[in-house]
Protein backbone atom coordinates (compact mmCIF):
# COMPACT_ATOMS: atom_id res chain seq x y z
CA UNK A 1 0.00 0.00 0.00
CA UNK A 2 1.22 3.48 -0.85
CA UNK A 3 2.12 5.68 2.07
CA UNK A 4 3.92 8.98 2.29
CA UNK A 5 6.41 10.11 4.88
CA UNK A 6 5.88 13.16 7.02
CA UNK A 7 8.65 14.74 9.02
CA UNK A 8 7.51 15.36 12.61
CA UNK A 9 9.56 17.72 14.74
CA UNK A 10 9.20 18.59 18.41
CA UNK A 11 9.41 22.28 19.23
CA UNK A 12 8.82 24.43 22.23
CA UNK A 13 5.79 26.62 21.97
CA UNK A 14 7.53 29.98 21.84
CA UNK A 15 8.40 32.59 19.25
CA UNK A 16 11.24 31.79 16.90
CA UNK A 17 10.95 28.02 16.89
CA UNK A 18 9.24 27.71 13.51
CA UNK A 19 11.77 30.15 12.11
CA UNK A 20 14.65 27.98 13.32
CA UNK A 21 13.11 24.84 11.84
CA UNK A 22 12.32 26.41 8.50
CA UNK A 23 15.77 27.94 8.31
CA UNK A 24 17.36 24.52 8.71
CA UNK A 25 15.09 23.13 6.00
CA UNK A 26 15.76 26.08 3.73
CA UNK A 27 19.52 25.59 4.05
CA UNK A 28 19.07 21.93 3.14
CA UNK A 29 17.15 23.08 0.10
CA UNK A 30 14.00 21.33 1.25
CA UNK A 31 10.68 22.28 -0.31
CA UNK A 32 7.68 22.17 1.98
CA UNK A 33 4.39 21.12 0.37
CA UNK A 34 2.15 20.96 3.38
CA UNK A 35 2.46 21.74 7.08
CA UNK A 36 0.49 21.27 10.28
CA UNK A 37 1.28 22.40 13.81
CA UNK A 38 -0.33 20.80 16.82
CA UNK A 39 0.46 22.50 20.09
CA UNK A 40 -0.17 21.31 23.58
CA UNK A 41 0.69 23.84 26.24
CA UNK A 42 4.39 24.44 26.37
CA UNK A 43 5.29 22.51 23.27
CA UNK A 44 4.08 21.63 19.83
CA UNK A 45 4.73 19.19 17.06
CA UNK A 46 5.23 20.42 13.53
CA UNK A 47 4.56 17.97 10.71
CA UNK A 48 5.75 18.58 7.19
CA UNK A 49 5.27 17.00 3.83
CA UNK A 50 8.53 17.72 2.04
CA UNK A 51 10.33 16.77 -1.13
CA UNK A 52 13.07 14.89 0.72
CA UNK A 53 11.86 13.63 4.09
CA UNK A 54 15.02 11.69 4.95
CA UNK A 55 17.27 14.67 4.36
CA UNK A 56 14.88 16.99 6.19
CA UNK A 57 14.74 14.71 9.20
CA UNK A 58 18.51 14.25 9.33
CA UNK A 59 19.13 17.98 9.00
CA UNK A 60 16.83 18.74 11.90
CA UNK A 61 18.32 16.03 14.10
CA UNK A 62 21.80 17.31 13.34
CA UNK A 63 20.75 20.66 14.78
CA UNK A 64 19.54 19.00 17.97
CA UNK A 65 15.85 18.76 17.19
CA UNK A 66 13.82 15.74 18.15
CA UNK A 67 12.56 14.75 14.71
CA UNK A 68 11.14 11.57 13.29
CA UNK A 69 9.45 10.22 10.18
CA UNK A 70 5.86 9.06 10.18
CA UNK A 71 3.91 7.04 7.63
CA UNK A 72 0.65 8.65 6.62
CA UNK A 73 -1.80 8.36 3.73
CA UNK A 74 -2.21 10.89 0.95
CA UNK A 75 -5.59 10.39 -0.64
CA UNK A 76 -6.68 12.17 -3.76
CA UNK A 77 -10.30 13.30 -3.77
CA UNK A 78 -12.50 15.13 -6.18
CA UNK A 79 -12.48 18.83 -5.37
CA UNK A 80 -16.25 19.08 -4.82
CA UNK A 81 -18.86 19.02 -2.05
CA UNK A 82 -19.20 15.70 -0.25
CA UNK A 83 -15.78 14.35 -1.18
CA UNK A 84 -14.39 14.44 2.35
CA UNK A 85 -17.65 13.03 3.61
CA UNK A 86 -17.15 9.97 1.37
CA UNK A 87 -13.74 9.35 2.86
CA UNK A 88 -14.91 9.88 6.44
CA UNK A 89 -17.91 7.62 5.97
CA UNK A 90 -15.81 4.90 4.42
CA UNK A 91 -13.36 4.98 7.34
CA UNK A 92 -16.24 5.08 9.82
CA UNK A 93 -17.80 2.01 8.24
CA UNK A 94 -14.56 0.17 8.99
CA UNK A 95 -14.17 1.52 12.48
CA UNK A 96 -11.02 3.38 11.53
CA UNK A 97 -10.20 6.37 13.65
CA UNK A 98 -8.78 9.50 12.05
CA UNK A 99 -5.94 11.04 13.98
CA UNK A 100 -4.30 14.14 12.64
CA UNK A 101 -5.61 15.22 9.29
CA UNK A 102 -4.79 17.96 6.88
CA UNK A 103 -5.03 18.55 3.18
CA UNK A 104 -4.22 20.84 0.36
CA UNK A 105 -5.52 21.76 -3.03
CA UNK A 106 -3.02 22.41 -5.79
CA UNK A 107 -3.30 22.49 -9.54
CA UNK A 108 -6.94 21.59 -9.33
CA UNK A 109 -6.27 18.48 -7.31
CA UNK A 110 -7.43 17.92 -3.73
CA UNK A 111 -5.15 15.86 -1.51
CA UNK A 112 -6.12 14.69 1.93
CA UNK A 113 -3.26 13.79 4.27
CA UNK A 114 -4.38 11.52 7.07
CA UNK A 115 -2.79 9.80 10.02
CA UNK A 116 -4.35 6.53 11.06
CA UNK A 117 -3.17 3.82 13.32
CA UNK A 118 -2.90 1.24 10.56
CA UNK A 119 -2.14 3.01 7.26
CA UNK A 120 -2.01 -0.20 5.21
CA UNK A 121 -5.48 -1.27 6.24
CA UNK A 122 -6.96 2.19 5.83
CA UNK A 123 -5.30 2.57 2.42
CA UNK A 124 -6.82 -0.67 1.25
CA UNK A 125 -10.28 0.29 2.40
CA UNK A 126 -10.06 3.65 0.64
CA UNK A 127 -8.70 2.08 -2.56
CA UNK A 128 -11.64 -0.28 -2.65
CA UNK A 129 -13.87 2.76 -2.40
CA UNK A 130 -12.30 3.90 -5.66
CA UNK A 131 -10.09 6.59 -4.12
CA UNK A 132 -6.47 6.98 -5.19
CA UNK A 133 -3.94 6.54 -2.43
CA UNK A 134 -0.82 8.29 -3.61
CA UNK A 135 2.78 7.22 -3.37
CA UNK A 136 5.38 9.63 -2.03
CA UNK A 137 6.42 10.46 -5.56
CA UNK A 138 2.84 11.03 -6.73
CA UNK A 139 2.01 13.18 -3.73
CA UNK A 140 5.04 15.35 -4.31
CA UNK A 141 4.25 15.69 -8.00
CA UNK A 142 0.88 17.29 -7.34
Amino acid at each position, binding site marked *: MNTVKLV*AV*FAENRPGQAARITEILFRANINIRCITVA*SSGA*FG*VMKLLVNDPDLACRSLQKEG*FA*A*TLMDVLAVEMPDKPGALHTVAECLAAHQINLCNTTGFVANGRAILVIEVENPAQAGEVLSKQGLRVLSQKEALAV
Partner: protein
Amino acid sequence: MFWNQEMETLERPALEALQLQRIQETLRRLERVPFYRERLRDTGVNAGDIKSATDLRRLPFTTAADLRENYPDGLLAVARDETLRLHTSSGTTGKPKALFFSRRDLDNAAELVARAFCMTGVTRSDVFQNMMSYGLFTGGLMMHYGAEKIGCLVIPSGPGTSERQLMLMQDFGTTVVHITPSYCFYFADFLDKKGINPRKDLSLRKAFVGAEPYTEETCRKIEAALGVDVYNSYGLTEMNGPGVAFDCEHKSGMHLWEDNFVLEIINPATGEPMKEGETGELVLTSINREAMPLLRYRTRDLTSLIPGSCRCGRTHRRIHRITGRSDDMLIVRGVNVFPQQIERVLMAMPQIGRNYVIQLEGLDDMTVKVELSPSAFDGEVGHLAQLQNQIAEKLRAEIWVRPKVDLVAAGSLPVGEGKAKRVIDNRSI
Protein backbone atom coordinates in the same frame (compact mmCIF):
# COMPACT_ATOMS: atom_id res chain seq x y z
CA MET B 1 5.92 26.24 83.43
CA PHE B 2 9.65 26.78 83.68
CA TRP B 3 12.53 24.38 83.72
CA ASN B 4 15.07 27.01 84.71
CA GLN B 5 12.99 30.02 85.66
CA GLU B 6 15.92 32.14 86.73
CA MET B 7 17.71 31.81 83.43
CA GLU B 8 14.61 31.88 81.27
CA THR B 9 13.38 35.12 82.81
CA LEU B 10 16.73 36.77 83.42
CA GLU B 11 16.39 40.54 82.99
CA ARG B 12 17.86 41.74 79.71
CA PRO B 13 20.81 43.67 81.20
CA ALA B 14 21.86 40.60 83.16
CA LEU B 15 21.28 38.35 80.17
CA GLU B 16 23.39 40.63 77.99
CA ALA B 17 26.15 40.74 80.58
CA LEU B 18 26.13 36.95 80.67
CA GLN B 19 26.29 36.88 76.88
CA LEU B 20 29.32 39.15 76.88
CA GLN B 21 31.08 37.04 79.47
CA ARG B 22 30.39 33.90 77.45
CA ILE B 23 31.46 35.57 74.21
CA GLN B 24 34.82 36.34 75.83
CA GLU B 25 35.13 32.74 77.01
CA THR B 26 34.24 31.49 73.55
CA LEU B 27 36.79 33.74 71.86
CA ARG B 28 39.44 32.37 74.20
CA ARG B 29 38.41 28.84 73.25
CA LEU B 30 38.54 29.69 69.58
CA GLU B 31 42.17 30.76 70.01
CA ARG B 32 42.91 27.03 70.25
CA VAL B 33 41.50 26.41 66.78
CA PRO B 34 44.08 27.25 64.11
CA PHE B 35 41.36 28.14 61.61
CA TYR B 36 39.80 30.69 63.95
CA ARG B 37 43.12 31.89 65.34
CA GLU B 38 44.16 32.93 61.86
CA ARG B 39 40.83 34.43 60.98
CA LEU B 40 40.70 36.46 64.14
CA ARG B 41 44.27 37.63 63.69
CA ASP B 42 43.42 38.76 60.15
CA THR B 43 40.66 41.01 61.46
CA GLY B 44 42.98 42.62 63.99
CA VAL B 45 40.21 42.55 66.58
CA ASN B 46 41.15 41.35 70.05
CA ALA B 47 38.81 39.60 72.45
CA GLY B 48 39.08 42.72 74.62
CA ASP B 49 37.65 44.87 71.81
CA ILE B 50 34.37 43.00 72.01
CA LYS B 51 32.37 44.95 74.54
CA SER B 52 28.87 43.85 73.57
CA ALA B 53 27.12 41.26 71.45
CA THR B 54 26.85 43.93 68.73
CA ASP B 55 30.64 44.09 68.50
CA LEU B 56 30.57 40.52 67.19
CA ARG B 57 29.77 42.11 63.83
CA ARG B 58 33.42 43.03 63.58
CA LEU B 59 34.30 39.35 63.41
CA PRO B 60 34.05 37.09 60.38
CA PHE B 61 31.23 34.67 59.60
CA THR B 62 31.55 30.90 59.67
CA THR B 63 29.86 29.10 56.81
CA ALA B 64 28.80 25.56 56.05
CA ALA B 65 31.69 25.48 53.58
CA ASP B 66 34.12 26.26 56.43
CA LEU B 67 32.77 23.25 58.31
CA ARG B 68 33.15 21.02 55.30
CA GLU B 69 36.65 22.25 54.58
CA ASN B 70 37.67 21.58 58.15
CA TYR B 71 36.15 18.11 58.16
CA PRO B 72 36.63 15.93 60.12
CA ASP B 73 37.93 17.74 63.20
CA GLY B 74 39.65 20.94 62.13
CA LEU B 75 37.33 23.12 64.20
CA LEU B 76 37.62 21.13 67.38
CA ALA B 77 38.46 23.39 70.33
CA VAL B 78 39.23 20.66 72.86
CA ALA B 79 41.37 17.52 72.86
CA ARG B 80 39.72 14.53 71.23
CA ASP B 81 39.63 12.85 74.66
CA GLU B 82 37.28 15.55 75.89
CA THR B 83 34.67 14.72 73.28
CA LEU B 84 31.80 12.36 73.99
CA ARG B 85 29.64 12.49 70.94
CA LEU B 86 29.82 13.08 67.24
CA HIS B 87 26.88 14.17 65.13
CA THR B 88 26.87 15.03 61.49
CA SER B 89 24.66 17.20 59.41
CA SER B 90 23.98 15.55 56.12
CA GLY B 91 25.15 17.55 53.20
CA THR B 92 23.45 16.98 49.90
CA THR B 93 26.81 17.01 48.24
CA GLY B 94 30.25 15.98 49.38
CA LYS B 95 31.33 15.55 52.98
CA PRO B 96 28.95 16.10 55.85
CA LYS B 97 29.52 18.64 58.60
CA ALA B 98 30.91 16.94 61.69
CA LEU B 99 30.05 18.33 65.11
CA PHE B 100 31.63 17.27 68.40
CA PHE B 101 30.15 17.51 71.87
CA SER B 102 31.82 17.42 75.25
CA ARG B 103 30.04 16.09 78.33
CA ARG B 104 29.06 19.61 79.35
CA ASP B 105 27.87 20.36 75.79
CA LEU B 106 25.54 17.37 75.85
CA ASP B 107 24.24 18.35 79.24
CA ASN B 108 23.58 21.90 78.07
CA ALA B 109 21.88 20.69 74.92
CA ALA B 110 19.60 18.52 77.02
CA GLU B 111 18.91 21.45 79.35
CA LEU B 112 17.74 23.60 76.43
CA VAL B 113 15.44 20.84 75.23
CA ALA B 114 14.13 20.38 78.76
CA ARG B 115 13.32 24.10 78.90
CA ALA B 116 11.51 23.74 75.59
CA PHE B 117 9.45 20.78 76.74
CA CYS B 118 8.54 22.52 79.97
CA MET B 119 7.44 25.73 78.34
CA THR B 120 4.89 23.86 76.27
CA GLY B 121 3.49 22.26 79.42
CA VAL B 122 5.10 18.83 79.22
CA THR B 123 5.67 17.22 82.64
CA ARG B 124 7.18 14.02 83.96
CA SER B 125 3.75 12.39 83.66
CA ASP B 126 3.89 12.67 79.88
CA VAL B 127 4.73 9.83 77.54
CA PHE B 128 7.00 11.05 74.80
CA GLN B 129 7.27 9.08 71.58
CA ASN B 130 10.27 10.21 69.62
CA MET B 131 9.47 9.43 66.00
CA MET B 132 12.60 11.10 64.66
CA SER B 133 15.53 9.22 63.34
CA TYR B 134 18.19 8.41 65.91
CA GLY B 135 21.82 8.13 64.93
CA LEU B 136 23.99 10.81 63.40
CA PHE B 137 21.03 13.15 63.06
CA THR B 138 20.70 15.26 66.23
CA GLY B 139 16.90 15.36 66.10
CA GLY B 140 16.50 11.95 67.68
CA LEU B 141 19.05 11.77 70.46
CA MET B 142 19.00 15.38 71.63
CA MET B 143 15.23 15.45 72.12
CA HIS B 144 15.51 12.09 73.82
CA TYR B 145 18.00 13.43 76.35
CA GLY B 146 15.92 16.52 77.02
CA ALA B 147 12.77 14.51 77.61
CA GLU B 148 14.60 12.18 79.97
CA LYS B 149 15.94 15.15 81.87
CA ILE B 150 12.45 16.23 82.84
CA GLY B 151 11.45 12.66 83.55
CA CYS B 152 8.97 11.80 80.80
CA LEU B 153 8.61 8.19 79.84
CA VAL B 154 10.51 8.19 76.58
CA ILE B 155 9.65 5.77 73.79
CA PRO B 156 12.55 5.90 71.35
CA SER B 157 10.49 4.57 68.47
CA GLY B 158 12.49 6.28 65.76
CA PRO B 159 10.85 6.71 62.39
CA GLY B 160 9.69 3.06 62.04
CA THR B 161 6.51 1.94 60.41
CA SER B 162 3.20 3.64 61.06
CA GLU B 163 1.74 0.34 62.17
CA ARG B 164 4.28 0.08 64.98
CA GLN B 165 4.05 3.77 65.89
CA LEU B 166 0.32 3.37 66.33
CA MET B 167 0.70 0.22 68.42
CA LEU B 168 3.09 2.02 70.80
CA MET B 169 0.78 5.01 71.03
CA GLN B 170 -2.17 2.83 71.88
CA ASP B 171 -0.42 0.47 74.28
CA PHE B 172 1.57 3.06 76.23
CA GLY B 173 -0.71 6.08 76.00
CA THR B 174 1.67 8.41 74.16
CA THR B 175 0.82 12.05 74.87
CA VAL B 176 3.61 13.87 73.05
CA VAL B 177 5.31 13.10 69.77
CA HIS B 178 8.31 14.51 67.99
CA ILE B 179 7.74 14.28 64.27
CA THR B 180 8.45 15.91 60.94
CA PRO B 181 5.66 17.86 59.26
CA SER B 182 5.65 15.58 56.25
CA TYR B 183 5.30 12.49 58.41
CA CYS B 184 2.40 14.13 60.27
CA PHE B 185 0.30 14.12 57.14
CA TYR B 186 1.33 10.67 56.18
CA PHE B 187 0.48 9.40 59.63
CA ALA B 188 -2.85 11.24 59.70
CA ASP B 189 -3.74 9.54 56.42
CA PHE B 190 -2.72 6.23 57.86
CA LEU B 191 -4.97 6.75 60.91
CA ASP B 192 -7.79 7.72 58.62
CA LYS B 193 -7.48 4.53 56.63
CA LYS B 194 -7.42 2.53 59.86
CA GLY B 195 -10.60 4.25 60.96
CA ILE B 196 -8.86 5.68 64.01
CA ASN B 197 -9.91 9.05 65.33
CA PRO B 198 -6.85 10.42 67.13
CA ARG B 199 -9.02 12.66 69.33
CA LYS B 200 -11.01 9.75 70.71
CA ASP B 201 -8.85 6.72 70.24
CA LEU B 202 -5.43 8.11 71.20
CA SER B 203 -4.06 10.15 74.12
CA LEU B 204 -2.00 12.51 71.95
CA ARG B 205 -1.92 16.10 73.19
CA LYS B 206 1.11 17.71 71.67
CA ALA B 207 3.33 17.38 68.66
CA PHE B 208 6.78 18.89 68.43
CA VAL B 209 7.15 19.41 64.75
CA GLY B 210 10.51 20.22 63.34
CA ALA B 211 13.53 19.17 61.33
CA GLU B 212 11.96 20.72 58.25
CA PRO B 213 10.60 24.23 57.96
CA TYR B 214 6.88 24.46 57.46
CA THR B 215 4.23 27.10 57.19
CA GLU B 216 1.61 28.32 59.62
CA GLU B 217 -1.01 26.73 57.35
CA THR B 218 0.69 23.38 57.61
CA CYS B 219 0.78 23.77 61.37
CA ARG B 220 -2.98 24.41 61.49
CA LYS B 221 -3.62 21.45 59.23
CA ILE B 222 -1.56 19.13 61.40
CA GLU B 223 -3.42 20.33 64.47
CA ALA B 224 -6.73 19.60 62.79
CA ALA B 225 -5.63 16.26 61.39
CA LEU B 226 -4.10 14.83 64.55
CA GLY B 227 -6.09 16.70 67.19
CA VAL B 228 -2.95 18.00 68.87
CA ASP B 229 -1.29 21.28 69.75
CA VAL B 230 1.63 21.76 67.42
CA TYR B 231 4.75 23.45 68.75
CA ASN B 232 7.34 24.69 66.38
CA SER B 233 10.85 23.55 67.07
CA TYR B 234 13.96 25.08 65.59
CA GLY B 235 17.44 23.76 65.71
CA LEU B 236 20.40 22.75 63.66
CA THR B 237 23.18 20.28 64.21
CA GLU B 238 25.77 23.04 64.10
CA MET B 239 24.12 24.55 67.20
CA ASN B 240 23.37 21.39 69.27
CA GLY B 241 20.46 20.22 67.19
CA PRO B 242 16.84 20.70 68.30
CA GLY B 243 15.91 23.11 71.05
CA VAL B 244 17.79 26.19 69.85
CA ALA B 245 14.45 28.00 69.67
CA PHE B 246 11.04 26.71 70.58
CA ASP B 247 7.43 27.80 70.85
CA CYS B 248 6.19 28.46 74.36
CA GLU B 249 2.61 27.80 75.46
CA HIS B 250 1.44 30.95 73.62
CA LYS B 251 2.77 29.72 70.30
CA SER B 252 3.58 33.25 69.22
CA GLY B 253 7.10 32.77 67.96
CA MET B 254 10.03 30.69 69.10
CA HIS B 255 12.13 31.79 72.05
CA LEU B 256 15.76 31.51 71.14
CA TRP B 257 17.96 30.71 74.14
CA GLU B 258 20.14 33.76 74.19
CA ASP B 259 22.22 32.60 77.14
CA ASN B 260 23.55 29.93 74.75
CA PHE B 261 23.41 31.66 71.40
CA VAL B 262 23.96 35.18 70.13
CA LEU B 263 21.54 35.80 67.34
CA GLU B 264 21.79 38.16 64.42
CA ILE B 265 19.52 38.61 61.44
CA ILE B 266 21.45 39.70 58.39
CA ASN B 267 20.87 40.46 54.77
CA PRO B 268 22.11 37.24 53.17
CA ALA B 269 23.44 39.11 50.16
CA THR B 270 25.40 41.85 51.94
CA GLY B 271 25.96 40.43 55.43
CA GLU B 272 24.66 43.67 56.91
CA PRO B 273 22.23 43.54 59.86
CA MET B 274 18.53 43.79 59.08
CA LYS B 275 16.23 46.11 60.99
CA GLU B 276 14.23 44.49 63.77
CA GLY B 277 11.26 42.68 62.31
CA GLU B 278 12.70 42.38 58.83
CA THR B 279 13.26 38.95 57.35
CA GLY B 280 16.83 37.90 56.81
CA GLU B 281 19.25 35.10 57.42
CA LEU B 282 19.69 33.90 60.97
CA VAL B 283 23.29 33.98 62.15
CA LEU B 284 24.16 32.26 65.41
CA THR B 285 27.21 32.23 67.64
CA SER B 286 27.31 29.37 70.10
CA ILE B 287 28.58 30.91 73.33
CA ASN B 288 28.10 27.99 75.68
CA ARG B 289 29.90 25.25 73.83
CA GLU B 290 33.19 23.65 74.76
CA ALA B 291 34.04 21.17 72.06
CA MET B 292 33.12 23.10 68.96
CA PRO B 293 31.88 26.65 69.34
CA LEU B 294 31.08 28.41 66.09
CA LEU B 295 31.46 32.09 65.48
CA ARG B 296 28.71 33.89 63.58
CA TYR B 297 27.50 30.79 61.84
CA ARG B 298 25.44 31.42 58.70
CA THR B 299 22.46 29.12 59.22
CA ARG B 300 20.97 29.95 55.79
CA ASP B 301 17.59 29.90 57.49
CA LEU B 302 15.41 32.91 56.83
CA THR B 303 13.45 34.38 59.68
CA SER B 304 12.80 37.63 61.51
CA LEU B 305 12.87 38.85 65.09
CA ILE B 306 9.55 39.38 66.79
CA PRO B 307 9.58 42.73 68.56
CA GLY B 308 8.28 43.10 72.09
CA SER B 309 8.10 40.71 74.97
CA CYS B 310 6.08 37.55 75.36
CA ARG B 311 3.25 37.05 77.83
CA CYS B 312 5.03 33.99 79.19
CA GLY B 313 7.59 36.20 80.92
CA ARG B 314 10.64 34.79 79.21
CA THR B 315 13.16 37.43 78.29
CA HIS B 316 14.79 35.49 75.49
CA ARG B 317 13.72 37.01 72.21
CA ARG B 318 11.52 35.22 69.73
CA ILE B 319 12.03 34.46 66.07
CA HIS B 320 9.35 33.74 63.49
CA ARG B 321 9.03 30.32 62.01
CA ILE B 322 11.64 29.75 59.34
CA THR B 323 10.20 31.04 56.11
CA GLY B 324 12.78 29.58 53.84
CA ARG B 325 16.32 28.64 53.28
CA SER B 326 18.92 30.42 51.30
CA ASP B 327 20.28 26.93 50.88
CA ASP B 328 19.27 24.43 48.23
CA MET B 329 16.23 23.01 49.93
CA LEU B 330 12.99 24.32 48.52
CA ILE B 331 9.79 24.70 50.43
CA VAL B 332 6.92 24.32 48.04
CA ARG B 333 3.37 24.50 49.36
CA GLY B 334 4.63 23.76 52.84
CA VAL B 335 6.56 20.75 51.69
CA ASN B 336 10.31 20.42 51.68
CA VAL B 337 11.65 19.57 48.32
CA PHE B 338 15.23 18.81 47.51
CA PRO B 339 16.13 19.30 43.87
CA GLN B 340 17.90 15.97 44.24
CA GLN B 341 14.57 14.19 44.76
CA ILE B 342 13.29 15.63 41.52
CA GLU B 343 16.46 14.70 39.80
CA ARG B 344 16.19 11.14 41.00
CA VAL B 345 12.71 10.78 39.48
CA LEU B 346 13.61 12.42 36.21
CA MET B 347 16.83 10.59 35.77
CA ALA B 348 15.11 7.24 36.17
CA MET B 349 12.97 7.94 33.09
CA PRO B 350 14.56 7.03 29.76
CA GLN B 351 12.29 9.44 27.87
CA ILE B 352 13.96 12.38 29.55
CA GLY B 353 17.22 14.02 28.59
CA ARG B 354 19.87 15.10 31.06
CA ASN B 355 18.95 18.63 31.84
CA TYR B 356 16.09 20.04 33.83
CA VAL B 357 15.15 23.27 35.58
CA ILE B 358 12.84 23.83 38.49
CA GLN B 359 11.01 27.13 38.31
CA LEU B 360 9.12 28.59 41.24
CA GLU B 361 6.83 31.47 40.55
CA GLY B 362 3.93 33.43 41.91
CA LEU B 363 2.88 32.28 45.36
CA ASP B 364 3.97 28.69 45.18
CA ASP B 365 3.73 27.46 41.63
CA MET B 366 6.28 24.92 40.60
CA THR B 367 7.14 24.17 37.01
CA VAL B 368 9.65 21.52 36.13
CA LYS B 369 11.12 21.90 32.67
CA VAL B 370 12.56 18.70 31.36
CA GLU B 371 14.31 17.97 28.15
CA LEU B 372 12.70 15.41 25.93
CA SER B 373 15.08 12.71 24.87
CA PRO B 374 15.06 12.78 21.03
CA SER B 375 14.79 8.99 20.90
CA ALA B 376 11.52 9.13 22.82
CA PHE B 377 9.80 11.27 20.18
CA ASP B 378 7.39 9.48 17.87
CA GLY B 379 5.61 12.48 16.42
CA GLU B 380 2.47 12.09 18.51
CA VAL B 381 1.38 15.12 20.49
CA GLY B 382 -0.86 12.89 22.55
CA HIS B 383 2.02 10.72 23.67
CA LEU B 384 3.97 13.76 24.74
CA ALA B 385 1.05 15.04 26.78
CA GLN B 386 0.81 11.61 28.39
CA LEU B 387 4.50 11.66 29.16
CA GLN B 388 4.15 15.06 30.83
CA ASN B 389 1.36 13.69 32.94
CA GLN B 390 3.34 10.63 33.85
CA ILE B 391 6.31 12.74 34.94
CA ALA B 392 4.10 15.03 37.02
CA GLU B 393 2.53 12.02 38.70
CA LYS B 394 5.86 10.38 39.48
CA LEU B 395 7.13 13.65 40.92
CA ARG B 396 4.03 14.02 43.04
CA ALA B 397 4.60 10.57 44.49
CA GLU B 398 8.17 11.50 45.36
CA ILE B 399 7.96 15.10 46.55
CA TRP B 400 4.30 15.38 47.58
CA VAL B 401 3.79 18.30 45.30
CA ARG B 402 2.40 17.95 41.81
CA PRO B 403 4.38 20.33 39.66
CA LYS B 404 3.47 21.54 36.23
CA VAL B 405 5.74 19.72 33.81
CA ASP B 406 6.90 21.30 30.58
CA LEU B 407 8.71 19.25 28.00
CA VAL B 408 11.35 21.23 26.22
CA ALA B 409 13.71 20.43 23.41
CA ALA B 410 16.95 18.69 24.25
CA GLY B 411 19.77 21.17 24.61
CA SER B 412 17.45 24.12 25.03
CA LEU B 413 18.01 24.59 28.76
CA PRO B 414 20.97 26.65 29.86
CA VAL B 415 23.91 24.62 31.04
CA GLY B 416 25.88 26.54 33.62
CA GLU B 417 29.57 26.39 34.25
CA GLY B 418 30.26 23.61 36.71
CA LYS B 419 27.25 23.15 38.93
CA ALA B 420 24.13 23.70 36.87
CA LYS B 421 21.62 26.22 38.09
CA ARG B 422 18.67 23.91 38.55
CA VAL B 423 16.41 26.13 40.56
CA ILE B 424 14.99 29.47 39.54
CA ASP B 425 13.01 30.86 42.43
CA ASN B 426 10.99 33.91 41.49
CA ARG B 427 8.52 33.67 44.32
CA SER B 428 8.06 36.60 46.65
CA ILE B 429 9.00 35.54 50.16
